[in-house]
Each structure stands twice: as structure tokens, then as C-alpha cells.
């Protein structure tokens, strides 16, 4: 047995699957979990992954790769039906089979071992420490990725100079995880900070939130409206409510894009165009001409609420108001925030205000606030009048 194979068995490549259909993802996950040769293991998050696997033939993956969303280096594995001239990454030919995936694992491992150590000296030193401890951790999710257990990688920074996932030390993983949570839930806030209904720092005028515009189109538009386009100065968003689809011109995996799209807008900055059946062909033509990033409308509404409100409460909302979830949101298809399941369980079970939920779950106020905002946006949160005031 050669050294590469030995190493592969001892330290399986921890992979994260992204930019591929749910069906392909499920097939590969199934292969990995049933794979006796032990070349691969599923990483709990991108932060714990050695390799990112993408499907070149899936929707807009090729365009995203071209746009530099993934670095074509040793930490990237590309599934493709056609030969690709990307020698620095590992290309796996379709149709996929066991032998091809095993061979790809060996190639990737060899490439990873050949990466120029000097380019990221500090990270690689720390990686050596990780590797000594990691075998014990392979069956235990990283504590610092705990709230995102098994959630596909979603967010990455826009800094191309950052090393790939395999070079990230534990400290960097923690930093990136915290950055992601900050983007989804905003900075830490106390309940006291959030108490004043019009505090401009901790409250936001709902009219300035793009999530409100999006939700109004997805959930409340006239059934005759088959498509809508939200035109922003540097981006546009197409919504097809009857097909439950949203197409965005920018990737939301970049922090700068998220901040650009979901900042506080004045109503005059946003233009909304609505199309009835007669205009749908024009919309589809536009979508076909330019690559877009697609989402389910429901999950996009949830995500847009997280990004737009950033842990702030809507102006005028009484923090003592009791709330209750009408039913569980479909959280297998929504972006998870810390303590998401526990907060949902608590708010499904009883009518409670924010303080009670924070105390019951033991989470930060911003975690409960973010879930409240997202649930309110997708119409599953009922707010009761506070009669004590």
C-alpha cells in the first residue's frame, strides 16, 4: 500500500459538497457513508473541510468558478462531464463511479501534500497540530461549528488572498464562523439595548428592509403577477412567486455582496417591476441570457430577513410582546442560525416574549431576535398584543 493510500485511510479527506443538485449531493453523501475504503468523510462545515467539491455542469457553477468564487487549487474537486483544463484542481469525470472517486481522492491528497508550504507557513504549521488531534475528532463535530452541524457551506469572504479551507487553523475557522454568525445575526446586543422601540442603532424601519419588499412579492402579490424584478443600483433580483423561485444577479456567498444588497434602503432607491403572464417570456429570456444565482423563494425570504435586519428589531415592536410560532418553519431548507432548533421548539410550544425565550434556551438575544425576524417575514410568527403596558 503506498503512502498516499495509507494516509487517505488514516485521515480521510473531509469534504463539503456545494454547487450541485440535491440529487447529486445525496448520491455522493450516500457513497461516502457507505464507502468502505475510507477515502472521504463529510465535513460538518466548510470550516472543517479539506476539499470543496462542486459540480461544473450544475446550473451556474461554471460561471461562478469563472468569476473566482472558488480558487482552482488543490482544495477544489470539480465534477464534470467534459474534460477541463484546470490542472491545479482535481477534476473527476462523470459518470461518477466508486473507482473514479477513489482515484480522485488519491490525486487530491497528493496535490494537497504538494502545496507550497511557504505560501501559508503559519497556517500549515497549525494544520500539523490539527492533524495530530483530528483522528479523535472525525466522528465528533467541531464544537465551533456546532450550530451549523451538517449545514452546507453557505458563506465565504470575498478576500481572494485567504487560504483555502485546508490551510485554515482552528483560530481562523472560529473567526470565519463568528463572521458568518455576525452577518446572519448582527453584533451582540443585550435585551436592554433592544428595549427602546425607536433606538436607531438597534431598531430598523421595516420599510428600509429589502426583505419586506421580497416577502410582499412572494407571499402577498396578486395571483395575476407571475414575475417581479427588484432593481437595485448594482444588482437585480427576479422573483417568480408561482414557481417558488428567486434569481439574484450576485452571489450571496460573498460578504460584500450581502452588505451591498441588504443594506438599509430608502424606498426611492428600489424599483420594482411586476409582470403578468404576457411579460413572463421577457423575464425568462433575460434569465437565460445572464447567469444568475437561484434560490427557492421561501428560503430566500428567510435569508433576506436575516441579512436585512441583522439582529435588529423592527421599529415600534414591543419587546415584552408575547409571540408564538403558528407551526415549525421548514428548517431543513432554511439557513440555520445558532440555537435555531431549540428556539423554534420553545416558540412552537408556548407563547413567550423575547426575554423568556432567551432565558429558556440560554442563547444570545440576537439569536432569538434573528429567528423572530425571519419567522415573521415568512408569516409563521404570530405576535400577541401586550396588555400589560
Amino acid at each position, binding site marked *: 500500500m503506498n503512502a498516499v493510500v495509507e494516509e487517505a485511510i488514516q485521515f480521510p479527506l473531509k469534504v463539503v459538497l456545494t454547487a450541485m443538485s*440535491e440529487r447529486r*449531493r*445525496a*448520491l455522493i*453523501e*450516500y457513497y*461516502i*457513508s*457507505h464507502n468502505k475504503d475510507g477515502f472521504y*468523510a*463529510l465535513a460538518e462545515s466548510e470550516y472543517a473541510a479539506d476539499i470543496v467539491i462542486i459540480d461544473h455542469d450544475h446550473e451556474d457553477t461554471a460561471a461562478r468558478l469563472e468569476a473566482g468564487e472558488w480558487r482552482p487549487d488543490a482544495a477544489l474537486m470539480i465534477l464534470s462531464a467534459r474534460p477541463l483544463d484546470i490542472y491545479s484542481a482535481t477534476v473527476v469525470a462523470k459518470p461518477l463511479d466508486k473507482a473514479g472517486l477513489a482515484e480522485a481522492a488519491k490525486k487530491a491528497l497528493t496535490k494537497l501534500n504538494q502545496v507550497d508550504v511557504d505560501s501559508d507557513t503559519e497556517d500549515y504549521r*497549525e494544520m500539523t*497540530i*490539527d492533524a495530530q*488531534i483530528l483522528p*479523535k*475528532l*472525525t*466522528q*465528533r*463535530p*467541531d*464544537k*465551533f461549528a*456546532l*450550530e451549523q*452541524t*451538517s*449545514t*452546507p457551506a453557505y458563506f465565504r469572504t470575498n478576500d481572494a488572498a485567504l487560504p483555502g479551507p485546508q490551510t485554515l*487553523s*482552528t*483560530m481562523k475557522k*472560529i473567526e470565519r464562523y463568528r463572521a458568518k454568525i455576525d452577518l446572519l445575526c448582527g453584533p451582540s446586543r443585550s435585551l436592554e439595548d433592544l428595549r427602546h422601540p425607536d433606538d436607531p442603532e438597534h431598531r430598523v424601519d421595516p420599510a428600509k428592509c429589502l426583505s419586506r419588499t421580497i416577502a410582499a412579492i412572494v407571499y402577498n402579490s396578486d395571483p395575476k403577477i407571475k414575475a417581479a424584478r427588484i432593481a437595485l443600483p448594482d444588482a437585480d433580483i427576479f422573483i417568480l412567486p408561482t414557481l*417558488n423561485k428567486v434569481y439574484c444577479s450576485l452571489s450571496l456567498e460573498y460578504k460584500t455582496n450581502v452588505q451591498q444588497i441588504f443594506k438599509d434602503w430608502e424606498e426611492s432607491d428600489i424599483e420594482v417591476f411586476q409582470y403578468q403572464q404576457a411579460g413572463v417570456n421577457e423575464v425568462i429570456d433575460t434569465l437565460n441570457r445572464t447567469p444568475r444565482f437561484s434560490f*427557492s423563494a*421561501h*428560503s430566500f425570504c428567510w435569508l433576506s430577513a436575516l441579512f436585512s435586519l441583522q439582529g435588529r428589531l423592527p421599529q415600534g415592536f414591543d419587546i415584552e410582546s408575547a409571540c408564538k410560532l403558528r*407551526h*415549525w*418553519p*421548514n*428548517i*431543513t*431548507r432554511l439557513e*440555520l442560525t445558532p440555537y435555531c*432548533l*431549540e428556539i*423554534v*421548539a*420553545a416558540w*412552537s*410550544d408556548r407563547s413567550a416574549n423575547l426575554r423568556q425565550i432567551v432565558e*429558556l*434556551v*440560554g442563547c444570545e438575544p440576537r439569536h432569538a431576535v434573528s429567528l423572530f425576524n425571519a419567522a415573521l417575514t*415568512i408569516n409563521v410568527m404570530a405576535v400577541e398584543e401586550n396588555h400589560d403596558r
Partner: protein
Amino acid sequence: MTDRDIVAETMEARETQICKVLVAGPVGVGKTTAVSVASDTPILSTEVHPSDDTQLQKESTTVAMDFNTVWLDDGLKVHLYGTPGQKRFDFMWGVLAKGTAGVVLLADNNSDNVFLDIQAYLDAFEPMIHKRQLVVGVTRMENDSDQALQPYRDYFAQRNMHVPVLEADPRSRHDVIILIRASLAADQLGRTA
């Protein structure tokens, strides 16, 4: 603090708790797949070639149980049991249900009898429903639409039952882990409170 310190501290902080979670559902819904995909550890299975009509559906079927172990965050260890789907092995449901902290009921959205299937399991796992320990994962959903889950929500609402209903693909570890965690969430809250 070095990486080694952080990892050591993390591991020390983990107090291992063990929970038992059951995966139930009709024949062919994906129970064995779900139990298998939830962890990298090999599944312990009692799959045999079926001797009845089940052979028309698939080549092997579970006759006693499937078993796997899954580590969740904060050191929570889950013993995951898959029940046999065939009615004639339903005596195993009660046996396996003892000491269960959560039940994941998989429902096949393509089945004509999906609500009859659900009803059969609701009768068997009624105590878990009252303790908020049952979650329903609806499989084979063709369009990724929240509205497609509404008939299931209505079904439980009409029976005054508080049951989480989530879309699920039993081949996806992400989905299976969320179903497991959802079934345990109420129990975990009880421990926190």
C-alpha cells in the same frame, strides 16, 4: 491560546450524554438509508431478502432493526434505531420505543396511503407526541415548496397535535441530522429549563 489548548478544552467541555432516537415509517420510505447516512460509522443492520410482496418494491428489507451511532454537537451521542417497516413486525416498534428521547417518522409524499401510514404510527407512538418528541419528515417532495407541507400541517392541526413537519431527503445527512435534532429539541429544552 494554541490550537492544541482550544481543542483540548473543547473535548474536556464535552460531557457525553446518550440519547435514543427512533426512525420509523412505512416500507421503502428510506429508514435504513437515513440511519446509515447519519453517521460515518458502519450501520448495524438486519436486512434480509423479503419473502412477501415487499420483494416487488426492493431487494432487501429490515426485519428487526437498524442501528447506528451519531455524535451531535456538544458531545451528545445519539443511538439511532431504525424500525422494520412491515406491519407484521410492528411488535418491534413498542420494543424499540422504550426509553426513546425522540422519534423521527418518515412519510412518503408519493404514497396514496400516506395519511393512513402516518395514523398507524401515531397510534403506536402517541406518548411521544404528547412529550413533543415526534417529528415528521416528508420524503419525495417534488417541488421545493413550503406550501406542499400544508396538508400535513393541517392533518395534525385537525387532531390538535403539535408535530413538526419538515421536508426531508433520507439520503441527505444534513436533513437526517436536523430531523434528529428537531426530535430532541423539546427534550433538550426540558433539561435546560
